[in-house]
């Protein structure tokens, strides 16, 4: 089985102090750790597990600048066979649609029985690249997948819906799956695989191979700004009933009913 996993290198902002840079369109990055996007690590693991089970090849692809090669190497160390970097620097501002087109331009020429992507990138939060890519490649997809079982020619994919419900789909390959966190336990790389990965060649594809003029975007970032924050630590006083009424109001105001 030939498998492809799309991964992205992102700044780890969940626990960090995030500041906007002077352009107003990007964040200050010099104090941020960069890692593989969280759900991509699960997508990669799912791809490796599938490859281990059915044998075949696993190619990882990332649209990114030179640094993304570190992330691709991590994927190689964990079990991918080949890695391709699409040079983000050649294509200007990227939105999800453009990223998907770049991936398509490369993947269309590769054999692929299954494609895995993360379900959301924690930097731009678009959650659209996987599904868009499937459409551009003309293949079926299932997003937010938390379980995959392969039974002969049928793939049972389980999608996570709101409120603790799973949607069970019967699909056929080739297909694309966007993977939700928690589906598996991403592995560590072994030192032996790390040494091997350090020496592997990463294929780099840029504007020489992909005609930038054919690639359009649907949106452009105007500006970043800090969302308004509320005050901290107001002690609610009064009778229990009054306190309860205040909480009721707070919950209502936040649209949490």
């Amino acid at each position, binding site marked *: 089985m030939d498998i492809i996993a799309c991964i992205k290198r992102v700044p780890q*902002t969940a626990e*960090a102090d*995030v500041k906007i840079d002077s352009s107003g369109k990007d*964040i200050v990055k010099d104090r941020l750790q960069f890692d593989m996007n969280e759900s991509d690590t699960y997508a990669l693991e799912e791809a490796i597990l599938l490859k281990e089970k059915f044998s075949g090849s696993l190619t990882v692809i990332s649209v990114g600048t030179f640094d993304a090669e570190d992330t691709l190497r991590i994927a190689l160390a964990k079990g991918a066979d080949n890695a391709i970097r699409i040079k983000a620097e050649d294509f200007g501002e990227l*939105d*999800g*649609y453009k990223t*998907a087109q770049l991936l398509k331009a490369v993947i269309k020429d590769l054999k692929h029985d299954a494609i895995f992507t993360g*379900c959301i990138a*924690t930097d*731009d*939060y*678009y*959650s*659209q690249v996987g*599904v*868009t890519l*499937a*459409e*551009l490649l003309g293949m*079926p997809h299932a*997003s*937010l997948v938390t379980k995959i079982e392969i039974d002969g020619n049928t793939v049972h994919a*389980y999608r996570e*819906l*709101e409120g*603790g*419900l*799973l*949607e*069970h*789909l*019967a*699909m*056929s390959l080739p*297909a694309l799956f966007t993977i939700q966190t*928690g589906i598996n336990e991403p592995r560590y790389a072994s030192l032996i695989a790390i040494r091997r990965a350090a020496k592997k060649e990463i294929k780099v594809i840029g504007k020489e191979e992909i005609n930038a003029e054919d690639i359009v975007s*649907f*949106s*452009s*970032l*105007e*500006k*970043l*700004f*800090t*969302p308004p924050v509320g005050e*901290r*630590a*107001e*002690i609610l006083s009064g009778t*229990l009933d009054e*306190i*309860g009424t205040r*909480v009721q109001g707070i*919950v209502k105001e*936040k*649209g*949490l*009913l």
Partner: protein
Amino acid sequence: MAEIFALVEHRQGAVRDITYELLTCGRKLATAQNTKLTALVFASPADKIVESIQERADRIIVMEHGVFENFNAEIYQLALRDILEKEKPHVTLIGHTAFGYDLCPALGAEMGIPFATDCLDIEFTGSRLRVTRSVYDGKLDAHVLLKEHTSYLVTLRSGCFTPEEVSLATEVVKQESPVTEQPEYRKFVDYIEAAVGEVDITKADIIVSVGRGIKEQANLPVMEEFATAIGGVLSCSRPVVDAGWLPKDRQVGSSGKTVKPKLYIALGISGAFQHIVGMKGADTIIAVNKDPNAPIFNEADYGIVEDLFKVVPVLKEKILDAKKLKG
């Protein structure tokens, strides 16, 4: 003026809350653009669904067919394409839910219509659409401009618009479904309840978190009931896991999960730093602790200095009351 469309989301026969939010947002846009709001219902049976949204849109287009009984992105895509090609709406609003997520990007890519996903707000600036989105793990917001086009698709995050009651004169129009069967390559099979043990606290919007202050395991069911009643899930601090009262995957903190719900209610949790780092990203934190000096109050938005066993029943009742009023 081209219209604003909103896709009605339903599951297991009932309209999902996001639908009302989409209609509220849609009306805001329609008013601003001086145009009409149309709701799209793909369902089977459709009557109850149509009835639930009566008077909330100027027009309801209904496609009733067995294939729409359960959501399938592939089928919705075909049906929507059919309508969008005929009607050419200016903006089509879809929920940023597991359904919208699966549908919108594929539809936009297929039809070449610019789309924006997971939007908090949306407005016109001239003829272009500007959306507000949350980025970088929710630490920042972004304004994004969509490419100039006659039509747009937008998925809206839930909880960003408060549904409003209106009474519009609604015209109901029936249309034939262009699809009549599920495609071979992707068939809906069934819905499955996730096992109770599989509750993922990292994805919950409302979390009730209990600490050593709940005293004993026998008090857990009351807390669980409270959490369920207000539509949340139960999490805890480490001592509760150590005591074996809740499984490890419910632990919030440095050696547990990092959560960022919209509402985090901490009951009898002191606020050790290993706990705080796991929950300080929550939008709103309400802490109940009988010790006025508990460090958790440094992190909370609202503090209640009281015995949690007295507070919980009151909170539960009040929140349930509010829900009833609304429902």
